């Protein structure tokens, strides 16, 4: 009985402590009665869940984010790999990439709307563009900063070409690549939020814009909360990925 209570206590403490400040904050908010109150937001969300709309909005937004991330991430990763491994590629491609990188991509929105209209493509383009650069820079850096001593050791032990890449270069670059992924996830959500706010007919952004038109501040607040939760979720996924891939790393343990 004591053991059960002890393990329950330990579990509660570990999982609850990170949430203690947000929970306290919400409690104070409710107590002060600042409209819209958490209870009102909760009521609005229950309504939306029951009608099935909430699930749909979340699904659409998450899908956009995922596809944009996949496209931008893949391009950024391949570019980073290519430029990292082949000096010729770097000479050719790095300057154009850096030039595009310095343009704040959200400032491109009017241009994007002009080119792609207000449909899916434009939003995906913005998300992909935002995701591309952190992944590119960190992949490139990761490849270039692999311990040259390990590469030399690989050569002495007969590792060449693809084998050298998979055994030495890629795992050595992985910590840096994962940093890029973490950063890109943050940019992904920001890009999505802005893209959805501009012109949307589905997704969380649409829900928020609609609610604004009808002065439904509780729904507006709900949408903000949803973005925050989705951001936290993607961070958790990134953390799990890191834990799995970087078990060997002294810095990512204890």
């Amino acid at each position: 009985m004591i053991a059960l209570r002890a393990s329950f206590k330990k579990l509660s403490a570990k999982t609850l402590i990170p949430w203690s400040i947000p929970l306290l904050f919400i409690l104070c908010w409710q107590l002060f009665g600042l409209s819209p109150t958490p209870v009102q937001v909760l009521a609005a969300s229950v309504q939306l869940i029951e009608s099935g709309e909430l699930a749909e909005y979340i699904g659409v937004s998450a899908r956009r984010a995922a596809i944009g991330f996949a496209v931008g991430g893949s391009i950024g990763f391949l570019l980073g790999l290519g430029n990292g491994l082949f000096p010729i590629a770097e000479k050719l491609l790095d300057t154009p990439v850096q030039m595009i990188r310095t343009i704040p991509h959200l400032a491109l929105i009017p241009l994007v709307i002009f080119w792609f209209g207000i449909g899916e493509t434009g939003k995906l383009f913005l998300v992909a563009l935002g995701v591309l650069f952190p992944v590119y820079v960190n992949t490139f850096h990761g490849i270039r900063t692999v311990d040259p001593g390990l590469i030399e050791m690989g050569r002495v032990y007969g590792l060449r070409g693809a084998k050298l890449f998979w055994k030495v270069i890629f795992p050595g670059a992985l910590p840096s690549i994962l940093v890029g992924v973490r950063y890109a996830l943050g940019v992904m959500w920001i890009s999505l939020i802005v893209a959805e706010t501009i012109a949307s007919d589905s997704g969380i952004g649409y829900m928020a814009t609609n609610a604004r038109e009808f002065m439904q501040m509780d729904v507006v607040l709900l949408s903000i909360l949803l973005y925050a939760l989705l951001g936290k979720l993607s961070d958790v996924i990134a953390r799990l990925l890191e834990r799995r891939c970087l078990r060997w790393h002294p810095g990512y343990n204890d």
Partner: protein
Amino acid sequence: MKRGRSGICLDVQGVGKAFGSTRVLQGLQLMIPPGEFVAVVGRSGCGKSTLLRLISGLDQPSEGKILLDNQPVTGVHADVRMMFQEARLLPWQRVIDNVQIGIKSESRISAEEVLQLVGLADRAAEWPRVLSGGQRQRVALARALAGEPRLLLLDEPLGALDALTRIEMQQLIEELWLEQKFSAILVTHDVSEAVTLADRVIVLEKGRVALDLPISLPRPRARDHGFAHFERVILDKVMARGTEGVAIVKQRAYSYSV
């Protein structure tokens, strides 16, 4: 471990190496018969590590040629293995997988067997980050021996270890060399280590062989008069001083390492 292979015969003919305008080696002549253990000593920058890299195929000589069993060196040789000053284990692979890197496809030996040889069979599933420096070098030694090399190149592998671990590793290396009879070249700044392990000690100076001294002591080497005599001869040569008064006082200030 089954043996059917003998050491490589190494022939360095008139080898020179320059990095830009700096000549590190010039006109180097060296012959090492199969199975011999040779130590190369010299001051910092005398070119001993460079020589090792040329023999391993990691670098090309600017002039001259290097022959392994009468074949010129054209890059990394499958029968040549190297140990570095750092263990250079892949941190993302467990110990056993690191040793596996050294195993050749036609090999008759397993990674577990080689780990057993260096006494680390029980640490096979660990990550390198939990091992001590000495243990990591032992894994590196296992990895080097896993390929059943005929020439083992040792680039100051014990320099970063503490004195006691160094002695243990020296004994381990000697043991394995006596058993497997590969050729070995040990680059070291430690004259005592050279006299302990080598059949022959080479002193490099100004890019050439300045002294080639066979060590006629029985194995295992005891630190007796004969040992000290050889150490003195070699150290005198490395310090490159004869009977100048100031130099002799300086010599006394240097202590021989453990």
